[in-house]
């Protein structure tokens, strides 16, 4: 992990192509809730995962406010994010993107959920997880043929988010180089 020693390392080696592949993985999981894909190419300082780092580099720039939650908010991570994306660091309430563990990201009510005329003006949370698995909560709705399954950190909280539809937050779940997603449109039932 020598690459993590400096904020200048850990970027894409070929930005346009790496970002294109990364976006396709991100788009695929957002379009198919419950699906797990590999997402790699970028490396951020510990404790941020490769998948989360790759999402940040693919989606963030000076136009997007990023909130680093809890343990992910280190001087090294701040420098890395600023150097590679130019994204302004903001509070949770202003964030377009937030990254951290589930408990570090709480409380959810802090984040933007969009407005009735612009539901897209909402936060996307990148939730760092120990592992991703297609077990646990049962998902249905757009992107899902019949049902799919995904281990979610907190079913009632995420059900409450989907009740806000078409407002609400959208989630990526990351672990190592794996990614899954949960848009606000997904209906969630206990396993």
């Amino acid at each position, binding site marked *: 992990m020598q690459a993590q020693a400096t904020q200048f390392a850990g970027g894409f080696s*070929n*930005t*346009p*192509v790496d*970002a*294109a*592949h990364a*976006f*396709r993985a*991100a*788009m*695929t999981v*957002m*379009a*198919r809730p419950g699906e797990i894909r590999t997402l790699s190419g970028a490396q951020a300082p510990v404790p941020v995962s490769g998948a989360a780092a790759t999402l940040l580099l*693919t*989606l*963030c*720039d000076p*136009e*997007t406010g990023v909130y680093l939650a809890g343990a992910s908010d280190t001087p090294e991570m701040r420098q890395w994010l600023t150097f590679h994306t130019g994204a302004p660091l903001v509070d949770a309430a202003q964030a*377009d993107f937030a990254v951290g563990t589930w408990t570090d990201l709480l409380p959810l009510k802090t984040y933007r959920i969009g407005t*009735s*005329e*612009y*539901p*897209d003006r*909402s936060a*996307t949370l990148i939730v760092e997880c120990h592992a991703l698995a297609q077990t646990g909560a049962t998902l249905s*709705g*757009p*992107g*899902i*043929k019949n049902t799919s399954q995904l281990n979610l950190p907190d079913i009632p909280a995420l059900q409450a988010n989907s009740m806000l*539809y*078409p407002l609400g937050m*959208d989630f990526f779940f990351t672990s190592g180089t794996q990614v899954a997603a949960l*848009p*606000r*449109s997904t209906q969630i039932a206990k396993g």
Partner: protein
Amino acid sequence: MTEYNFAYLDEQTKRMIRRAILKGLAVPGYQVPFASREMPMPYGWGTGGVQVSAATLTPDDTFKVIDQGADDTTNAVSIRKFFENTAGVAVTEETEKATLIQTRHRIPEAELTEDQILVYQVPIPEPLRFLEPRETETRKMHSLEEYGLMHVKLYEDISQHGDIATAYAYPVMVQDRYVMDPSPIPKFDNPKLEMSAIQLFGAGREQRIYAVPPHTKVVSLDFEDFPFVASKANHPCDLCGAEDSYLDEVILDDAGNRMFVCSDTDFCRSRRAAGHVGRLGTEDAA
């Protein structure tokens, strides 16, 4: 690092479009505003679709472009060449081999798979525009699900003018929430909007992106006394004999002779290659 921008657009523009696509997928049928860029082609050539394709393509893709079902129009050929040159993608005319298909005004006849993406060129993304010219008002109507007037107007059109008035761009309700314009596809294609592929819609001039994830509920608006019918010319294809494909009517001569042929040229070609024969034979079969 690179001398040119991959897929023409700079990285910041692609990121902005990619963020819009993700929000569009999260709220199916909702029109996400985006800052449309100038593209090296006129607006009528589907710059919205081109920008969505540019933000979505990877060098591993096999790209297909259809213009009203045909791969060989000037528009389709130009866009295909554009991405062949700027993104280094492989190109194809065969629907089954394509991983990303950009389309103007048709959905391919062949059923698309979950490994495919369909990108629509959209001229007018707002299905309520004919009722209300002001964007602030249509946005409010969508936010309040104020679709009553839309239903009334659609009912009037159908009851007074029959099928003709509503043969294209027939509005749909997406996942019981947003009324959406499916772009000027024939209503024959509407039932195919519920599919396994990811559908992305780009309107360049109007600066809107919207999306329909796989298996999303898409219902064509209709009425008890005028149920939705995915109509087509009541005729088989004169070249390949297909009874279930959308047909173009072609005038053959001054005497008024005409023929009906599949609008989806790859579908027709592959059927003829497989030995299917229509009324006018197989003379120019592939």
